[in-house]
């Protein structure tokens, strides 16, 4: 190959790259579960066992994941710390969720997070990258702005647009797997706060009334399923924690399709009421979800 030919080939490749993006996108085909309970709360077992029992009472993961669908699982992988610190979602739980999805016939299960610490170290040291690969899922990077596409946030008071990871926009099923933690400024981080890891510019949220932005964004794309990991719970110094002394063994899990209900129930595990946490209060008032747990069908399972 002569030089001229080489140069023209390379430049053609560069010019073509942006257009490859417009290749086939799978159509949205959200699962429409008709579940027997609004919320399932489990206590007393290992994280994986609690998930097995909890999802069984909702008719199994196949109530949410259909054969051939693309699933995106969004745990919290924000910090470069070991699993014992409970700053990230329990890796064994993430692995088990992927296994359930694959057994239900999912075409592929992809996991990512827009991390706070260096993302390669977060993926590795959280144990989640390993768990994902061992259970047959794919781990995808969330560190590059080119993966994020601008969307408008309907009805947002302070947040009217955001850049959201393409995997969230293109997948058929979105499973949100936050870890329950104390949080310096948001008070608690659970389901709604976990969605800050699917957007690019979090600084905007911090500058423009954090609580209102979290509530605004939760109306954008409600996850098809929320699984709150409250096995090990960081009770202070959140969201990063200083050491293992910040963590208590709670052995609990909340599963719901309603983020606001799941956040309310999880908050109560740490003695918080919805009115104590602004974004839960706002989301409840604007009808994004329910905070009146007494009126919901709740299945309480003890292992």
């Amino acid at each position, binding site marked *: 190959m002569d*030089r001229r030919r080489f140069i023209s080939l390379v430049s053609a490749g*560069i010019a073509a*790259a942006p257009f*490859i*993006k417009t*290749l086939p996108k799978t159509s949205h085909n959200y699962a429409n579960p008709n579940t027997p309970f609004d919320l399932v*709360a489990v*206590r*007393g077992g290992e994280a994986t066992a609690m998930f097995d029992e909890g999802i069984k009472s909702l008719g199994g993961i196949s109530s949410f994941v259909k054969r051939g669908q693309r699933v995106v699982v969004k745990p919290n992988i924000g910090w*470069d710390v070991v699993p014992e610190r409970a700053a990230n979602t329990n890796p064994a739980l993430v692995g088990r969720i992927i296994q359930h999805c694959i057994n239900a016939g999912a075409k*592929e299960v*992809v996991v990512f997070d827009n991390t*706070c*610490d*260096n993302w*390669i*170290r977060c993926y590795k*040291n959280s144990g989640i990258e390993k768990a994902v690969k061992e259970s047959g899922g*794919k*781990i*995808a*990077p969330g*560190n*590059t702005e*080119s*993966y994020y596409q601008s969307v408008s946030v309907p009805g947002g008071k302070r947040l009217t647009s955001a850049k959201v990871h393409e995997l969230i926009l293109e997948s058929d099923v979105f499973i949100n797997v936050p870890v329950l933690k104390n*949080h*310096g*400024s*948001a008070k608690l981080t659970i389901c709604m706060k976990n969605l800050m890891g699917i957007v690019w510019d*979090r*600084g*905007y949220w*911090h*500058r*423009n*009334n*954090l*609580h*209102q932005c979290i509530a605004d964004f939760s109306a954008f794309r409600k996850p098809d399923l929320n699984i709150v990991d409250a096995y090990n719970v960081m*009770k*202070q*110094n959140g*969201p*990063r924690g*200083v050491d293992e*002394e*910040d963590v*208590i*063994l709670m*052995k609990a899990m909340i599963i719901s399709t309603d983020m606001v209900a799941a956040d*309310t*129930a999880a908050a*109560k595990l740490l*003695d918080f009421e919805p009115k104590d946490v*602004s974004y839960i209060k706002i989301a409840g008032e604007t009808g994004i979800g329910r905070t009146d*747990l007494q009126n919901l069908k*709740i299945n*309480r399972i*003890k292992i």
Partner: protein
Amino acid sequence: MKALRKARIITQILFFAPLFFIFIDFTGITGEYFKNLLTSLQFIPSIIKFLTIPSLLAGGFILILLLTIISGRAYCSTICPLGILQDIAGYLKRKLFSRNRFDFKKPHKVIRYGLLVILLISLVSGTMAAVNLFDPFSLFGRITFQIFRPLSIGVNNVISFVLSRFGNYSVYPQEFYFVSSPVLAFTAFCFIGITVLAVYRGRWYCNVICPVGTFLGLISKFSIYKFEINHPLCTECGACGKMCKSECIDTEKKIIDMERCVVCFNCTTVCNSSAITLTNRYRREGPKFSSERRVFINKLGSFLPGLLLFYSMKDSIIVYVLNKIPVIRKTPVTPPGAVSLNHFTSRCTACGLCVSTCPTHVIQPALFAYGTEGALQPVLDFEKSFCNYECNLCTLICPTGALLPMGIEAKKVSQLGKAVFIKDNCVVITQKTECGACSEHCPTKAVTMIPYEGLMLPEVREKYCVGCGACEKACPTKPYKSIYVEGNAEHKIAEKNLEKKKIKEEKVLEEFPF
């Protein structure tokens, strides 16, 4: 003699390929032991490291001195990555266009010795500016990191992008962390300059500018083995002179200037009559001394005033301007293991291996972050990133000992600087809404949140702060930050944060509270 040329080329590849790789390695797969081993034979870094932390591994320069005493400047043709880079430029010119013909040139002795003297004087007076400008290894490191690494990341990202369109996320895209434009411009200038010179004038840089070349050249005058043109055998065809990239073969007088010869064996290979031989200088007559020493001392006097002028320029360090309350950092923040401003700036040769190793890219190349005395030395840039709490890689790989090795537990309490909170810039004050991004990212909770008019306001507890800059990077306020790290001129030891309730003993209810 052809075999020796081949051996030289194989050795070049063996040294160059891994050295090139450690500077472009964006995956972090090259470990610290590998890096230390590779850089231990680099002349200037090795000397500085030996003076800082004397050890066997740091004694690489002694081996190079021995090599030079035996066979002249073989170092320049086998180990020095900048020398090899120039050879590659020449090779590409030859393959793509046509072979360049060289001519014998007189040595630029005034410039060569002058620069060496400047370097020595500046070293004695504790500034690394001259070393950092001219040390070939460091120059190579900066060129590779700042120019070739972005190119290789580009290739990686094109592959990653194409694969991800087909749902394959196995090749991760890498972020481009371009260094600031003046830094890049300077490095590009050096790179283009050296490449162009290499193509048309061979080892011009090595024989005019490079202080290592000049120094080893002085030793080469007395090396045991030297090249000689065998008068009766020579057919005076002049081929060797045209082939010599050091431009040091005087074909008319039939003399090879060993001070400039880089022992590449090109001349011996091209000579059809085998007239050029490697001979033992001391088997026949004694070495000839020239009266160059006098010139040497004379030049010293004329360079001193220029040197003083160089010192008098010193930049002040203003990080953010056009702010309501501008952030003015009085002391730049040095990487972990730097011990102190003084320790760091007097040893760092600005090779940039820490810059290329740093997984968070918080260590950035700079021009005058430490004033002219510390020209080109890298600095922590919290606009770009922050120092990972659980990482000590940079301390383990420094070729000169400017960063001393530090265990991970020691690094986690090493205080590079202290966070300073500018209350009136903060979202909580200006917008009256919650934020707390700084406290979120703080690995030691030195930045904590305290109640303030129904909201939570950051507060810095200096004794726990390690100066990692996570708070400064996370702070979302614009155009000025509300929290920044003021560097410690001497690194200190932070206290461990033990302020916590005994929550472990707290009994967790096993019922459902709803």
